[in-house]
């Protein structure tokens, strides 16, 4: 990729991907609550309504089930809709259309249609928005055949994964952690994609493999810095795609490090880390394991309002440091 690289925020990177796709493909259009003049609840769609008009950047009534279903209907009849859930928590209202219709339509129709749509899913805690505006429900969708699920951790990946999603023939959910929107990072100009289903090893290390996504990648990297000073070398894998999962990358890493830990914000039980543990425990890497597989997931509670409680409900850097140190078990 030789295109000039600028510093953009995560939100700007998403904006850029949307704009590129809309320029290139008249089938792409956006729907969602307050994505027009308001610019989106998180100011991601910004001025797109002025660039592409209100027909293609369409404010919807507050009707998530209907909105998702409209996207399905448009997708199977020649368009490429992008529906923004204002918060991914509100997708609870649209599970019927997402799971029974979008995900299954191709299969139920014996391959006679594709359903090329994108659901944008702002997720995660840390903003003081409490239990109904802070969930990390990625694992639900990663459980559903017919869907693809990605979760970028950097502006660079946000743009590349979203562009891949916008060109994919199947329904893709893009989870966008709210705390990342303002984070800046290098983003190449122009068009590029990151393949759906490929993880990235973002730090090499010998002692413990840490698998994370979204904001947890940054926390894991910070923990890795700290532990490096103690001689403990974490290998950090950024999942990037939650369905399909790139099991190969994790398996190879575990064969090298012999220790595995997952870090995720969703509730620990049946969160994405459960799948990471399970697929390594059933894989050829099992025999290489030198220690139990550790999961550092969200607490078994809704996200609380009080900021100290809120922090206590999801893994923080010190938690990762501590757990990884214990897992490394004195090996340096």
């Amino acid at each position, binding site marked *: 990729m030789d295109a000039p690289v600028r510093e953009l925020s995560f939100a700007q990177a998403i904006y850029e991907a949307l704009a590129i796709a809309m320029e290139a493909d008249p089938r792409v259009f956006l729907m969602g609550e307050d994505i027009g003049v308001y610019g989106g609840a998180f100011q991601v769609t910004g001025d797109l309504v002025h660039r592409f008009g209100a027909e*293609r950047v369409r404010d919807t009534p507050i009707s998530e089930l*209907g909105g998702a279903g409209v996207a399905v*209907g*448009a997708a*199977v009849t020649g368009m490429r809709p992008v529906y923004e859930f204002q918060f991914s928590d509100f997708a609870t209202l649209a599970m019927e259309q997402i799971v029974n*219709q979008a995900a299954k339509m191709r299969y*139920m*129709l014996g391959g006679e249609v594709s359903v090329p749509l994108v659901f944008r899913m702002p997720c995660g805690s840390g903003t003081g928005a409490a239990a109904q505006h802070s969930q990390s429900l990625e694992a639900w969708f990663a459980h559903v055949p017919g869907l693809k699920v990605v979760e970028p951790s950097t502006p660079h990946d946000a743009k590349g994964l979203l562009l891949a999603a916008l060109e994919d023939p199947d329904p893709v959910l893009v989870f966008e952690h709210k705390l990342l929107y303002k984070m800046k990072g290098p983003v190449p100009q122009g068009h590029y994609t990151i393949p759906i289903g490929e993880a990235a090893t973002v730090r090499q290390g010998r002692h413990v493999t840490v698998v994370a996504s979204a904001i947890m990648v940054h926390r894991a990297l910070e923990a890795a810095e700290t532990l490096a000073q103690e001689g403990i070398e974490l290998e950090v894998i950024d999942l990037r795609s939650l369905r399909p999962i790139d099991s190969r990358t994790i398996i190879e890493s575990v064969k090298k490090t012999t220790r595995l830990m997952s870090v995720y914000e969703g509730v620990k039980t049946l969160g994405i880390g459960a799948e990471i543990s399970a697929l390594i425990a059933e894989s050829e890497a099992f025999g290489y394991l030198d220690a139990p597989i550790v999961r550092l997931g969200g607490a078994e509670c809704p996200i609380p309002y009080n900021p100290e409680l809120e922090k206590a409900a999801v893994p923080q850097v010190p938690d990762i440091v501590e757990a990884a140190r214990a897992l490394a078990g004195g090996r340096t």
Partner: protein
Amino acid sequence: MDLMEKAMSSAEVRANLPEAYRRLSPDQLKQALKKMHLIRLFEEGAEDSYQRGLTYGTMHLSIGQEASAVGICAPLTDADTITSTHRGHGHCIAKGADPKKMFAEFFGKETGYCRGRGGSMHIADVKTGNLGANGIVGGGLPIAVGAALSMKLQGKDSVSICFFGDGANNEGAFHEALNMASVWKLPVVFVCENNQYGMSTSTERSTAVKNVADRAVAYSMPGVIVDGNDFAAVASASMAAVDRAKRGEGPTLIECKTYRTRGHSRSDRNRYRTKEEIEAWVQRDPIPRFEQELIGLGFLTAAEAEEIRAAAAAEIDEAYEFAKASPSPDPADVTRFVTTV
């Protein structure tokens, strides 16, 4: 009565006929009658095949509702889409599907519309604009709105037709779909086939208004009530709604008052309605009624009517045999078609 008089009076009669009779050619009317027969015979065949153990799972028969399916689809072309329901065989045939591939799907065969993956509740025929039956009550409502939005964005001169039942009118999806369609003035026609019950629950016990069409005012769209067992009345209402949609004036809600004379599904014991009620509706069977009307109006002779019925029966027999003889999918292919890439 001399020839002159005869011509005049028949012109007069014509002028007073429902729009459908003025706009559809005799050939199209015969086609419509044939489709009604095909639907009836397909479903009787389906029932029969179930008894013979050729199929399993559930099925929902629309016997008694054929005029609504065929009447609504009368003014449509393949460029227009429909979304259908769990009770969708009629819509499927009305929109132009091949009974061969329908039976094959019904029997779970690789030659079926969905290669045996979908079954009765998911039959679709994308080529004729049928986006599919739906196992979720109300599931097709927002999808139909999406199809209409798609047409509008693509500048197409087509309409999207959305079939749903009286029971579906109490789903939130109904409300959200009709509201969006109206706010955006989309080319969509909402067709409620009010057969008086959602499974065992009468509209009176489930729905806070007398007529589903009474809800149209909540979406600032016309609400039209028609005798759903009267082909010409249904087709005329459909024509008006389709014209309106194509003129860019937005959606219409049509309510077809009808009745399913069979149970809701196989497991129905009909505890919630009387034999007398069913019998009264059997008397209002839309097929002989349409046939008689066509003969009475001189569109058809009794002999032609018999020919049409026979042709439909032959087609259904052939379809049934085709399906029976077709191969099943290979179980090793169970995860094919989940995603495109």
